């Protein structure tokens, strides 16, 4: 029996249990909060065990992919509940779990209004993300893609900060609207396949063999591309992100930045690159241009922000530009770079959002001018912040550099001027990261005696795990790079790079 | 023996009806309207009686009897209403002030 469906459904069920437990316990708010929190932690632990089994257990499934699960869902439409796992999914699943632990350990404990519902939504979003990484039935993929959005929308609009409703609505409109485009593309692909073969199916592997005219395949690919580009986000459609990240509660920020953006990158690899390899190659110059624009634009705007969370949000746009650039270089190097960059960005930016969220929880402000030097009062928090800021500026030896370097290398093969331009993003990264460091961590002590406490040793050790992983990804990324290459379809793999864009 | 023609009686009946009708239309006092109505009923009765005589049929007088009963009932009810209105503070018995029938 494959553990994949359990992996997907466990968080949702666990979340429901947490909610019910919270609803049924009427003894008091604090204990109720604890109950749902504890159940969430248990669910995550169970999920980890499952993932360990999946990773190291015996795979009965033979083939290039690691694991497979499929039962019919709506047979009349050719829809099935089909999950497949390859190295890419597996590494992103690990990232999901690794990031959700700090979220729960550091952030969601603070939630005291309706904690049960919060944990339920948190876990539901996690289900959506996990499922998105695994689903190979296009309908199921779309379903889980949307499932991811709704809890996140509620999380932002119910537990967010001052301007949460606008941010949540903007987030929802952008992602939902682009999701509908993807649905259209899916339907287009399925109908085209049906016309050709008289087989109605949403199966990813079958659909990959559909013969498409170049125009049609470009249109369909663009539908997918726009959905993923909004999620990634790519520059002209990134508008939802700074607001959503800024207004979301800490745990949701981490989830958004650390994981949800990755679904965009994952989708681009899995669906744009592997379903439409030739079209993606033709489209690559545009996509790479957008990626470079994202890198520079995000970094530039990040230099101008005074709001910590906004600064980090714009820096994520910059980092995700590298992912986009790497994916569309058309070489394995670029792809591996993009994947490493996704993982490293998930860890570093997730941690930065955790830290920024902790600062906001303690000081009730995100304005860097008002936060002032924290080193004297909270050395642990500040050193963690410094560490992740340095990681995010692309210091060699951290995962971000590995990703960025591989992407740059692949880009240099394609177009050296673009790559040289992109390195300017590294300088801007230094500027915004150190600006942040010198505004809030290593800065003159501004706030008079703070009642709030520094991170405890336990919390620091949680962050320490992230630090270790980030450094490991930086100095020894080879296992991850080998593992995380997407398994090829039988038809076309994004192998040796084309020489377009010269 | 009959001294007059049927047409003449019809003419008389018409005139009488018209006069009664005019009375209903021009008087605002309910009492007078009631009297005018009686005139109109009598015009109708005259017509029935004349027709009965013309065709020598008793039905005309039977109808007269019915109209008589009708007139009695009408008058009784109408007068009762007039009295009620008078008692309720509308001593002028003005037909135009009561507009309860208005749609």
């Amino acid at each position, binding site marked *: 029996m494959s553990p994949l469906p359990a992996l997907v459904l466990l968080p949702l069920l666990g979340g429901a249990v947490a909610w019910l437990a919270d609803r049924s316990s009427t003894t008091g708010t604090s204990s109720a909060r604890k109950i749902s929190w504890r159940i969430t932690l248990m669910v995550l632990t169970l999920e980890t065990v499952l993932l360990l089994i999946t990773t190291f257990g015996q795979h009965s499934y033979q083939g290039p992919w690691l694991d497979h699960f499929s039962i019919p869902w709506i047979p009349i439409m050719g829809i099935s509940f089909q999950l497949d796992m390859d190295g890419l999914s597996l590494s992103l699943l690990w990232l999901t779990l690794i990031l959700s632990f700090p979220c729960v350990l550091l952030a969601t404990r603070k939630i005291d209004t309706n904690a049960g519902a919060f944990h339920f939504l948190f876990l539901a979003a996690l289900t959506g993300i996990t499922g998105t990484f695994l689903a190979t039935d296009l309908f199921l993929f779309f379903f889980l893609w949307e499932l991811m959005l709704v809890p996140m929308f509620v999380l932002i609009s119910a537990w967010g900060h001052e301007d949460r409703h606008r941010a949540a609505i903007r987030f929802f409109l952008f992602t939902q609207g682009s999701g509908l485009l993807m649905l259209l593309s899916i339907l287009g692909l399925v109908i085209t396949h049906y016309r050709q073969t008289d087989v109605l199916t949403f199966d990813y592997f079958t659909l990959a063999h559909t013969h498409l005219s170049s125009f049609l395949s470009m249109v369909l690919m663009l539908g997918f591309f726009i959905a993923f580009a909004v999620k990634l986000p790519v520059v002209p459609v990134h508008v939802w992100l700074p607001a959503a990240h800024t207004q979301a509660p800490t745990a949701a920020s981490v989830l958004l930045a650390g994981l949800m953006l990755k679904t965009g990158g994952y989708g681009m690899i899995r669906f744009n690159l592997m379903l439409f390899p030739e079209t993606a190659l033709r489209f690559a110059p545009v996509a790479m241009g957008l990626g470079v624009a994202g890198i520079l634009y995000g970094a530039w705007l990040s230099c101008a922000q005074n709001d910590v969370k906004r600064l980090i949000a714009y820096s994520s746009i910059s980092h995700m530009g590298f992912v986009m650039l790497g994916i569309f270089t058309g070489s394995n190097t670029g792809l591996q770079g993009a994947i490493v960059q996704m993982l490293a960005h998930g860890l570093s930016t997730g941690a930065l959002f955790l830290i920024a969220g902790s600062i906001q929880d303690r000081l009730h402000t995100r304005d860097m001018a008002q936060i002032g030097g924290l080193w004297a009062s909270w050395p642990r928090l500040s050193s963690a912040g410094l560490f992740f800021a340095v990681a995010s500026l692309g210091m060699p030896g951290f995962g971000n550099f590995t990703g960025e370097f591989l992407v740059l290398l692949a880009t240099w093969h394609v177009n050296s001027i673009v790559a040289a331009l992109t390195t300017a993003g590294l300088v801007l990264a230094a500027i915004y990261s150190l600006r942040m460091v010198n505004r809030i961590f290593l800065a003159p002590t501004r706030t008079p005696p703070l009642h709030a406490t520094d991170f405890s040793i336990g919390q620091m050790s949680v962050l320490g795990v992230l630090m270790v992983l980030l450094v490991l990804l930086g100095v020894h990324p080879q296992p991850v790079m080998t593992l995380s290459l997407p398994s090829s379809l039988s038809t076309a793999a994004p192998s040796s790079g084309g020489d377009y864009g010269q | 023996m009959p001294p007059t023609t*049927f047409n003449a009686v019809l003419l008389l009946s018409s005139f009488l009806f018209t006069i009664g009708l*005019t*009375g209903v239309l021009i008087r605002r006092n309910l009492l*007078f309207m009631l009297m005018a109505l009686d005139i109109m009923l*009598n015009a109708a009765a005259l017509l029935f009686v004349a027709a009965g005589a013309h065709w020598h049929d008793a039905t005309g007088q039977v109808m007269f009897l019915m109209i008589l009963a009708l007139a009695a009932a009408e008058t009784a009810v109408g007068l009762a209403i007039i009295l009620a209105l008078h008692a309720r503070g509308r001593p002028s018995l003005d037909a135009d002030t009561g507009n309860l029938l208005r749609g």
Partner: protein
Amino acid sequence: MNTLALLSGSLTLLGAIMVITRRVAVHAVLYLVVTLLALATVFALLGAPFAAVLEVIIYAGAIMVLFVFVIMMLNLGQPDREREKEWLRPRIWGGPALLSTILCAELIYSLSTLPQQTDSFSPLSARDVGLSLFGPYVLMVELVSFLLLAGLVTAFHIGRHRMENR
């Protein structure tokens, strides 16, 4: 005989005109009695003595007494007379009178199209009327009795209200 018919007919019309133009209610009632008596004469001339008798007894007798009683109860006086004068302006009765005139003209015109015929009005006795009444029209008699009962009840009901409001 012809003279009598003409006289009674014109008296009827005259009385009716007087009824609708009087300002004092009692005068109008008296003129109405005159009209009814003249009409009874016409009935008699038409060979319907039973109807003539009933007209005098019930109409001129019973109903008119009812009117007189009511007028007495209304306790009308000089202001009412003035008001009636006020209400009987030509501007007010001009329109209705015109309408009535048109109707009258039309009736006359339509009567004039009827063929001229001379009739012999043979009298119908009370017996004929009675036979007819309790023969084919017995159901109508019952209906009329219902009608009278309804009128009685209604009048009583309205009058009772009046009593209570006192």
